[in-house]
């Protein structure tokens, strides 16, 4: 287990790389990448068993970024894990790059599912968890879902199936940053209360602060003890977390910063 201080250092490097990637590409999604940074870093470094040695295995712990537009986050974390050369990060969203705008599993080892079309990732995570149940394989499946994404009907089809198939090896984290492209989720199309909805669909639900490593680690540990049902960790997060002028502003959902804004952001993200 890495300490919270070590995780915080990794998260800072991840956020810096995301700023650099999106600025250089003049395209990408910073807000929803920053809201899920602690979630992804804690999963990859302290929870999931995904290593260079088992990376190519068809069966191992798996991660599905259902909110695939946070691709810069996934690539930056895979780079921290040593699965992707750091210098390649600046090819993000450019022609001939492996690092597509939304993740492609056939281009990058360590991307466990191609995602981007919202609502589809959680269903694939259900399929993976079901596979491990069928073949009695002791692996776990993790998926990060957006709160805006939960407006997709397919999320609820997947939720129904995960509970029906008793997939206690599935642990999803809902990145509840409260914003989507067009604005506040409660204004665009209110998906709340998500905790009660997932409970009603038969999930074990844990509510945490999505930027607090202790709470996240406790939730992952609790999810491992749950039998007969999947777990949904509802993580309250801040969109754009880590850069003051990006926080809680939906304008930063999918807009690249100018050179000056990037410089100011990187300054805030210094160690």
């Amino acid at each position: 287990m890495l300490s919270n201080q070590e995780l915080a250092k990794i998260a800072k490097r991840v956020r810096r790389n995301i700023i650099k990637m999106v600025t250089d590409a003049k395209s990408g999604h910073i807000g929803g990448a920053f809201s899920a940074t602690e979630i992804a870093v804690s999963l990859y470094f302290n929870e999931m068993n995904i290593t260079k040695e088992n990376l190519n295995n068809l069966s191992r712990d798996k991660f599905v970024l259902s909110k695939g537009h946070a691709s810069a986050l996934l690539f930056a974390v895979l780079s921290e894990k040593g699965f992707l050369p750091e210098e390649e990060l600046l090819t993000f969203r450019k022609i001939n790059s492996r690092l597509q705008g939304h993740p492609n599993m056939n281009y990058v080892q360590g991307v466990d599912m191609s995602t981007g079309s919202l609502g589809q990732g959680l269903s694939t995570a259900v399929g993976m968890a079901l596979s491990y149940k069928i073949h009695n394989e002791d692996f776990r499946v993790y998926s990060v879902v957006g709160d805006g994404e939960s407006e997709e009907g397919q999320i609820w089809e997947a939720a129904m199936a995960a509970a029906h198939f008793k997939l206690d090896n599935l642990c999803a984290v809902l990145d509840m940053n409260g914003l989507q492209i067009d604005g506040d989720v409660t204004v665009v199309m209110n998906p709340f209360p998500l905790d009660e909805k997932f409970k009603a669909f038969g999930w074990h639900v844990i509510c945490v602060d999505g930027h607090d490593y202790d709470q996240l680690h406790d939730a992952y540990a609790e999810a491992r003890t749950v039998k007969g049902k999947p777990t949904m960790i509802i993580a309250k997060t801040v969109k754009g977390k880590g850069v003051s002028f990006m926080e809680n502003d939906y304008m930063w959902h999918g807009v690249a910063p100018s050179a000056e804004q990037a410089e100011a952001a990187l300054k805030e993200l210094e160690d």
Partner: protein
Amino acid sequence: MAKMATREAYGKALAQLIVEDKKIVVLDADLSKSTKTADAKAVCPERHFNVGIAEGNMMGVAAGLASCGNTVFASSFAMFATGRAYEQVRNSIGYTHLNVKICATHAGITLGEDGASHQSIEDIALMRAIPGMIVIQPCDDIETKQVIQAISKVNGPCYVRLGRSAVDTVNNEEYVFELGKGSVLRKGNDITLIATGMMVQQALLAANTLSEHGVEVSVINIHTIKPLDESLILEYAMKSKLVVTCEEHSKFGGLGSAVAETLSKNYPVKMAMVAVNDTFGESGTPNALIEKYGLTAKDIVKTVLESI
């Protein structure tokens, strides 16, 4: 002549395969008695899953299962497998190139009495447009069995189009299905009929009638619509005055379009299409429907005689 629906043959073939191959997982969306995956469930309930009436989720679950090394057969009616779940098939199965076999039944208008809401006449067009998707439509029970066996050995996405109604068996027990290779069922020097699915039987009947009119036709069964057997089609087009495609599908984007794409590029020759016009179907018996919508041997004969 023996008669069996291709969906029946699918159910039997899958029930045999699922026992032999532990990597096969079958998904269905509350239609297992109609799609006949219930046969596989009867012999191997531990690898057959009903996902309920949720076709979009079924395709995603199929993709997830396939990403862990399973060979997944996912079944529903063609309307829902390719229409309702189009984008899930496109992004979670096509774009990922995962090992999912979408075996969709009740395709075309011969689904019958359920009517236009359930009659898929656009599915070949939709599936053919997805990069890397193999598209197959077997014409009878013998071919279906071999198709299912063959695709279980292919690593990648496949769409198999199956029918509800019983059709005559055209192939004999010596028949060998080869993916991507059209099957020549009759040779004649004047005209070539290129048919797929239940229209193969109609094309063979039409060939008999045309022969009585002194017109000798070749009949090619194109079971694999993608990748298309271009060299065989070209070979026969070059010795024909006319090529007529026959399919239980819309005139837009199906077999006729695929053949036209090839011939217009390589050897423009006079073509006609026997297919469903730009219209929806309706309720009725399969026979009443193929008559009204112009998919009988008589319609093929008429098209040929009018075109030469």
